[in-house]
């Protein structure tokens, strides 16, 4: 099946002096999905997003966005940067007027309809808005451009649970009516599990795993049993994470074929544990910041 790609990268690399922010990143992000970009802080998520929207130039590698070169300020891309910046001195209405002025594809009805639904006072200064309202305003400005690709950098990280849920409700409502492709970075896996159908795990500037959420969940298994030698699991089975006590082994294994062996107990795995397994694997060579668990 041929699927149109929203973003294609090949060996994409970004270095700042001696520090590598993104290393040899090769991805094919299909269009029409809500893609979760997950990894610890400093993994390279923002760098990747900023290169996709043309704000940063790669050091090496190739990048195709919506079939062409990335263009900074493209009307086809909506971008909500980290901490959802707004103009503190401008009112809510000013933001919409500015958006209409700057974007030929501006959908003023959509923008006003969204904010009315959220009980915004159009005369309110953006600097006086709550974190949740600021995020909603930034999202409104981004989607009213009617973009083909919406990029969100940690849009809900700073929000309380209620504001976070409201933000995701609004985002999903927009996706349902527009079919826009979305790439959204987050370290809150529980949120991503609800809204994303495609996942990219980025750790220490490298892509660890990528794919449709459903396929990833179906092909990863949690195996427990008396001490298991990972090498003896058989072909086609990739051990992602292995923990052993003196009497027991716990493995996270990737295998498309079902694992049936009376010696082990085989369970499914949820997205959070799957992501954590890849992050632990990546952290083995050294200390790494741990994924923040959301409860």
């Amino acid at each position, binding site marked *: 099946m041929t699927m149109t790609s929203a973003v294609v990268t090949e060996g994409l690399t970004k270095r700042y002096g001696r520090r590598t922010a993104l290393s040899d990143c090769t991805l094919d992000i299909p269009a029409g999905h809500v893609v979760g970009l997950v990894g610890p802080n400093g993994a390279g998520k923002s760098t990747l997003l900023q290169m996709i929207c043309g704000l940063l130039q790669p050091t090496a590698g190739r990048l195709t966005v919506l079939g062409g070169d990335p263009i900074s300020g493209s009307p086809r891309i909506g971008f909500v940067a980290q901490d959802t910046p707004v103009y503190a001195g401008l009112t809510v209405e000013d933001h919409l007027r500015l958006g209409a002025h700057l974007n030929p594809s501006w959908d003023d009805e959509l923008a006003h309809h969204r904010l009315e639904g959220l009980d915004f006072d159009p005369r309110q200064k953006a600097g006086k808005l709550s974190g949740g309202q600021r995020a909603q305003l930034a999202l409104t400005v981004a989607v009213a451009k009617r973009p083909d690709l919406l990029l969100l950098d940690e849009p809900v990280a700073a929000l309380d649970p209620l504001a976070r849920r409201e933000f995701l*409700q*609004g*985002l*999903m409502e927009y996706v*349902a009516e527009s079919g826009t492709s979305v790439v959204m970075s987050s370290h809150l896996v529980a949120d991503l599990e*609800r*809204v994303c*159908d495609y996942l990219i795990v980025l750790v220490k500037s490298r892509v660890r795993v990528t794919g449709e959420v*459903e396929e990833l969940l179906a092909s990863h298994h949690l195996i427990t049993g008396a001490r298991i030698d990972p090498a003896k699991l058989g072909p086609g089975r990739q051990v992602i994470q292995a923990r052993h006590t003196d009497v027991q082994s716990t493995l996270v294994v990737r295998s498309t074929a079902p694992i049936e062996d009376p010696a082990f107990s085989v369970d499914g795995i949820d997205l959070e544990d799957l992501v954590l397994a890849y992050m632990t694997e990546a952290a083995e060579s050294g200390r790494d910041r741990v994924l923040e668990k959301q409860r």
Partner: protein
Amino acid sequence: MIEFHLDARSGVAPYMQLIRQVRHAMRLGLLKEGDRLPTVKDVVARVAINPNTVLKAYRELEYEGLVKPRPGLGTFVTRTLGGESELAAHEPLRRDLDGWLAKARDAGLGDESIEALFADTFRQFSEERAGRAGRRG
């Protein structure tokens, strides 16, 4: 109109949770033939889940012959599950179960033991039935 919810910690896939909630509402008579399911947009705006999850659940329900989409109008329930006779049978069965639960308590079983015993017996019962049906076929 029914309203969906999601238990993120249940271990049941979200689309399957939606399917079960529709079947459950049909069995309880909350959804009858001709009733409309919420639109995909309404569901995602309330539950904050991926639209494809809802589409998948509705497609599965359509495949099971329980609902049918009408272009431009929505997705409609095409049959009534359970029906009067099944609903009428609920009450005496519930009384039997109450009695059984009281006996289990008297025997000193805790909540977890009761649930495990029921789930285990139910599974064996279903497997034996399926086995017999398999041999007959």
